[in-house]
């Protein structure tokens, strides 16, 4: 049994402590927006926020979390897709297949949370998610556009 704070709510989950946070979110809490891509923290599809920082939930055992850590998933990023990153993504039609985009959006939102005006170099080092469809140039434009909305 673990008590977590997910998207602003305290939740109790009855699960083996070694279970990665990703699978607790998806299979215990029904928050399937966070995706499984690799299981080894290589692709970023599983990115969520823990206390505002982007983390790869597929390799983090749920036993390592407590109720004081604020876990936010794509479902909890904003009400109705109103986060500046989501708005920018909508304006630029960023997603293609979309499977990597929850992780991409969470990574971009965390980057902007820490650095409201990221340079291209900041984006290069801060966004390491894989997108096989190839949305990177719109992702970059989207981050700059979102930065403008935050300002």
């Amino acid at each position: 049994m673990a008590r977590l704070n997910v998207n602003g709510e305290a939740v109790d989950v009855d699960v083996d402590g070694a279970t990665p946070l990703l699978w607790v979110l998806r299979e215990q809490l029904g928050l399937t927006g966070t995706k499984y891509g690799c299981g080894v923290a290589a692709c970023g599809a599983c990115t969520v926020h823990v206390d505002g920082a982007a983390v790869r939930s597929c390799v983090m055992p749920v036993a390592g979390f407590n109720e004081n850590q604020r876990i936010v998933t794509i479902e909890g990023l904003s009400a109705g897709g109103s986060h500046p990153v989501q708005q920018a993504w909508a304006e630029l039609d960023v997603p293609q297949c979309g499977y990597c985009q929850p992780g991409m959006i969470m990574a971009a939102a965390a980057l902007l949370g820490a650095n409201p005006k990221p340079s291209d170099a900041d984006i290069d080092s801060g966004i390491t998610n894989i997108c096989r469809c190839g949305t990177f140039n719109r992702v970059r434009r989207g981050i700059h556009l979102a930065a403008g909305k935050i300002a």
Partner: protein
Amino acid sequence: MNSTTTRGVAISRRSFVVASAASGLGLSLGFGLSGAQAAGDAAAGEVNAWVVIHPDDTVVIRIARSEMGQGTLTGLAQLVAEELECDWSKVTTEYPTPGQNLARDRVWGSFSTGGSRGIRESQDYVRKGGAVARELLIQAAANGWQVPASECRARDSVITHAPSGRSVSFGKVAAAAATLTPPAEVTLKEPTQWRLIGQPVKRLDTADKLTGKQRYGTDLTLPGMLNAAIMACPVFGGTLAGFEADKVSAMPGVRKVVQVDDNAVAVVADTWWQARSALAALPARWDEGEHKNVSSASIDAFLDEGLAGGDAFVGNKNGDLAAGQAQVVKTVEAVYSYPYQNHATMEPMNATALYTADRCEVWCPTQNGEAALAAASSASGLALEKCDVHKIHLGGGFGRRGAFHDYVHQAVVIAKQIPGTPVKLIWSREEDMLHGAYHPITKAKLVGGLDANDKLVNLHVRISGQSILAAVMPARMSNGADMITFQGFLPKGDHAISYTVPNLLVEHAMRNPHVPPGFWRGVNINQNAIYMECFMDELAHAAGADPLEFRRTLMADHPKNLAVLEAVAKGAGWGTAAGAGIHRGLAVCNAFGSFIAACAEVSVDAAGKLTIHRIVAATDPGHVVNPQQVEAQVEGSFVYGLSAMLYGECTVRNGRIEQDNFHSYNSLRIAQMPKVETIVMPSGGFWGGVGEPTIAVAAPAVLNAIFAATGTRIRHLPLKQQRLRAA
């Protein structure tokens, strides 16, 4: 599935039957034209097979092809809506199921979504579907007003009778329209009349992809559903020798351990993580079979044998090499190679199946719903009519989920062992990497002969390597030859050579290793464009000529190829100084019916670090439905093509693939992504594909720029094996 090599054959033969029916029957039915008669148990508000209009004026456009990121859902809807004259803001879409398609005499035609064919193959009949629906709606309104239909017109979902000043919305007359007999013929608009086709409208499927609401196959939940994880023999062609279910049956959540065919074992549990954990702990033994000693080195030697000589299929022949040899004063020779690559869709293979004694339902991402249906029928042993497939947007396709429904087959075989319970099978990334349908491996030896004027008079291209069709669709071979092996070298058609060479011979010595090949986004144009375009650069260099000028002399009869090449040259400033340390490279080709070119700008520092600064890309697809989505596909194609160039390689050791996840099979990240300037230059009069062609020019343009920067020819990919590396 007896072995990985034969699985594609078994499934594809069934899908070929379906596909044959599509070309033979479906087109003669006229699709939308006979929609009303074929309606049968038509949904409420269905005007014809393609268009449903609700009383609130909502327009539902039916989409037969699969959306996997390429934007076809929106593009096809634009084509229907253009003729329908509906209000675009009221448009939504839905997928008919393949079972419905079969029950209605395949009124929606082919569901196959590959080969960049989604729009170009169906544009005519989906536009007619929209036009017929419009005519029915107008007729229904005219009947109500008792005026001639010819006096009425439709625009933005409203029908107007100008003489009397009356108007009515589509939603008010849709039910009446559905009862009318559709016109036998409709006239489609001329391109100059298009108002929606050619417009950069937003995609219809973006909103849910921003909030986590979009459901993919892996996200599906059904009441009482169990989850399965699977492991097949890592050596292709090997079998399962045994497993000890009792060692894991008491693990949390485990419900059942099942054999799947003769080569795999799956654990079924309450959650997927439990199934995966138990599978990892499951002792399993394999009979690795006859290919257990195959390695990349042995495959390379096998292909070298094909390069050396012997029988070969001819893909293109012009003039006579032996006769041309008399004029040759300078000979250039080179050997290139291209490795196995995995599609690596972000969403791993998965399918959910529910089996009962008289019904089998499948929910899955698929590029061909009808082939998935055939797989469900075959695996369940139930007739096609007793099965159906519910398509879900794909988390990437790239060819992996079109001709291959091994994951559907497996899900059904598992579900059949737990009747009445839905089972969701998800492959781990490792399983996905080890059991792909790989980009085929080939090598090519090219010999070019220049005459005294440094003009190319002789070109001999000998390809040795794997045939996709031999493994996947043998019925599509031509007297033993796999003609798609020659994409980019063919004398005519969708993948024609860009040059006229007086004496030309292109041949293929087929060598088929045991690793199963598949259609991989771009298919054989990927390596053939590298062979052709990099070698063309070698020839230009040997001739002491500018690469653009050298190509131009051979392109007089290829004006559309030349036009895109000149467009990128102009766009990039070819012939003018680039920035300090920056060098340029060109590539051009004709692929999937479109004309494509790229000019890449790169620099390589003293330590061998490669930076790709900018790529100017031009596309002439004839007609453009949605230019902003064409741009997205062009940009995306560079990610796919440059990932392949930089990192894409699956090596073979002990009969199995060595790369099992993204740490060993890397993909380009945002930091390596160059600026892309896309020139969309539709010349009209034809419909070419967009999702794949640009991949072909990505690598050769960059490789030619690398030569310009370093004087080093890269002839073997990926680049990670060379001294160069991405910055």
